[in-house]
């Protein structure tokens, strides 16, 4: 049988195949229908369902002038209605900015007029109609910045300081890197891989932390894995296309192209980092003192070094490309700080951190392939192993400044 006749036969059968593919779906619909129609009788064979927990999920507590705003969400399948609010174990009048009856995963904001005292610990409770109270304990009440020109500028400056500035400073190592011995340069490239590995693990940890506070129904871990896979494979595809344009198919990226990949990986990490800083600061969990800002700057200057190392291998980098590298790697911290400061969206945070994990991992792969082919001694050279370990160590030690 020729190839053509096989294809023709397949084409002739294909409409039927497509219809047959629907059979499992139709059977599933039927089975679900039968199960639903029996009500709770199947469950009754083994016991009875417990009553709903009726606990709410307090997502964010904001302190405005003489007002506390509590964003809540219903994490359970059964709907709940909000009946009462307490501050420091006293019932207080409140209004709702949103619905009072919450279906599954629906949210609302409880607005409480209250003369809260700055710096004092405070507990805020929301009680459902079944009498179940969910309490949030705030270690110290501090004013939550609202959306204003001032706060937009403030978060932008925070993002600029922890993202753009250190990356730009790190890039200033570029001229001196051009002069170093190729074996040392390979060591610096490995250092880049080491610090990106650290960032990937760090982002995964952050992503897990955000996934943990999400209600189960959102499938936080799944989001993290999907975000990782999408960004890893997406960047693999981009790297493949870039390599094809520059010449040999499947060849590792090098020079400026590799530097751009590193910048993208670092930028996606800084998006998540900016978001984490912004949201922690907005809800009063993080004291964003000068010590912490300096800590972030010191840690992130190594990111600039990481971009400079591959760039040092290639031709002279034009100022425009230099600026682009800095912005790609650093500016996402500004966007992240805005999102974190003004919105509460753990779903977005989990996805962002997943994307950061995948991106960092992909760039580590790219750098590894590059070193394997180009570096003297490949991946087993002392410079490469030493550089990689140094990258991890530098990130760990500078990380102590922001712990």
């Amino acid at each position, binding site marked *: 049988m020729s190839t053509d006749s096989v294809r023709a036969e397949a084409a002739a059968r294909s409409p039927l195949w497509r219809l047959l593919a629907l059979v499992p779906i139709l059977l599933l619909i039927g089975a679900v229908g039968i199960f639903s129609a029996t009500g709770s009788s199947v469950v009754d064979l083994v016991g009875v369902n417990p009553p709903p927990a009726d606990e709410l999920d307090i997502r964010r507590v904001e302190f405005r002038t*003489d007002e506390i705003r509590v964003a809540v969400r219903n994490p359970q399948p059964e709907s709940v*209605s*909000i*009946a*009462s609010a*307490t501050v420091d*174990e*006293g*019932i*207080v*009048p409140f209004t709702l900015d949103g619905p009072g009856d919450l279906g599954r995963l629906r949210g609302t904001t409880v607005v409480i*007029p*209250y*003369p809260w005292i700055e710096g004092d610990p405070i507990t805020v409770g929301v*009680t*459902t*109609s*079944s*009498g*179940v*109270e969910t309490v949030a304990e705030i270690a110290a009440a501090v004013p939550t910045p609202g959306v204003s020109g001032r706060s937009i500028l403030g978060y932008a400056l925070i993002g600029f300081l922890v993202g753009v500035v250190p990356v730009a400073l790190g890039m200033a190592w570029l001229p001196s890197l051009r002069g170093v011995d190729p074996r040392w340069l390979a060591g610096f490239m490995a250092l880049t891989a080491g610090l990106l590995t650290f960032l990937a693990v760090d982002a995964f940890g952050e992503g897990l932390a955000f996934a943990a506070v999400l209600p189960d129904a959102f499938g936080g871990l799944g989001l993290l894995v999907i975000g990782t896979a999408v960004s890893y494979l997406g960047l693999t595809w981009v790297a493949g296309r870039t390599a094809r344009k520059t010449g040999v198919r499947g060849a590792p990226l090098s020079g400026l192209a590799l530097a751009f990949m590193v910048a993208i990986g670092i930028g996606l990490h800084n998006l998540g980092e900016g978001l984490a800083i912004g949201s922690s600061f907005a809800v009063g969990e993080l004291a964003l003192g000068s010590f912490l800002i300096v800590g972030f700057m010191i840690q992130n200057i190594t990111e600039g070094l990481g971009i400079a190392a591959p760039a040092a291998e290639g031709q002279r980098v034009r100022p425009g490309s230099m600026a682009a590298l800095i912005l790609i790697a650093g500016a996402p911290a500004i966007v992240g700080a805005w999102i974190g400061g003004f919105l509460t969206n753990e779903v977005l945070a989990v996805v962002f951190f997943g994307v950061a994990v995948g991106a960092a991992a992909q760039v580590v792969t790219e750098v590894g392939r590059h070193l394997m082919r180009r570096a003297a001694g490949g991946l087993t050279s002392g410079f490469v192993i030493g550089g990689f370990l140094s990258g991890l160590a530098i990130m760990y030690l500078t990380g102590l400044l922001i712990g």
Partner: protein
Amino acid sequence: MLAGAAPLVAAIPLAGVAVGPSLARGARETSIPSGAAHSHAAMVGQAVPAPGGPHDLDDLLYPPPARPARAGQVHEYEISAIDRQIEVAQGVFFDAWTYNGTVPGPIIRATEGEVLRVAFHNGGEHPHTIHFHGIHPANMDGVFEIVNPGDSFTYEFAALPAGMHVYHCHSTPLKKHIHKGLYGVFIVDPPKPRPPAQELVMVMNGFDTDGDGENNFYTVNGRAFFHSRYPIRVSRKQTVRIYLANFTEFDLINSFHLHGDLFRYYPTGTTDRFEHTDTVMQCQGERGIVEIDFSHTGLFMFHAHQTEFAELGWMGFFDVHDGAPGS
């Protein structure tokens, strides 16, 4: 029969649900400006989050009048245990075990020496009893004669001694049966009537609505902030007499504090000895009679002087006026 001579207190199941026409001297809706959002002014009048209408608790607040002494005559009550959801704070519902549909249960009142006959039917899903405080034979104590769901038992004994008493379920686990709402007050009037007064009954209690062993709401007569929303109107021209009892579970004590005046407090109401004070505290099951002769008119707060209890619902107001009592 003897019963024919005695007024039969209605024991319609769910009596508390269908509240009859209001008493003439019922609490009124008071038009008080809601005031600043976070002063006490916010906790009086229509702004207060309290459930129900102004007369919903009249049956629990205003006792039936004392009757003349008729030694040996029988006075009948019917009480049913009913499992029922009650609204203890605005929009918050509690799965209660009740006597006749309310928490606290109906006010039982007799004159010393009268024979009380309380026909108890257990319409709930758990075994219950009625244990009266006071003097009675061991087999009328409501401890050994457990009444299973669907069963009945009649308690019959002479009402003794004059004073203010309480009754409650004595099935185990006791803590659960009391916290769920099976308690009420039992007033025994002395043969020589007490001086005329504007009489009120207040049972201090709490509700643990989320089952964590701590009360989420505190009330008098079962609804948080009810008399903040609907202040109790009383006249300055006649004594206000409050039969006060404490059935708060989980917390060791509860208390009653009056603003703007002092009162006479007669512990258990059994003697003429009193303390002149503005704050009394009671442990669970403790009770006494409060007599207030208001010096001034206006709104006077009363509340637990455990401020936490007050802010979780146990506060209210007297609206003291200069008119005739009951007007």
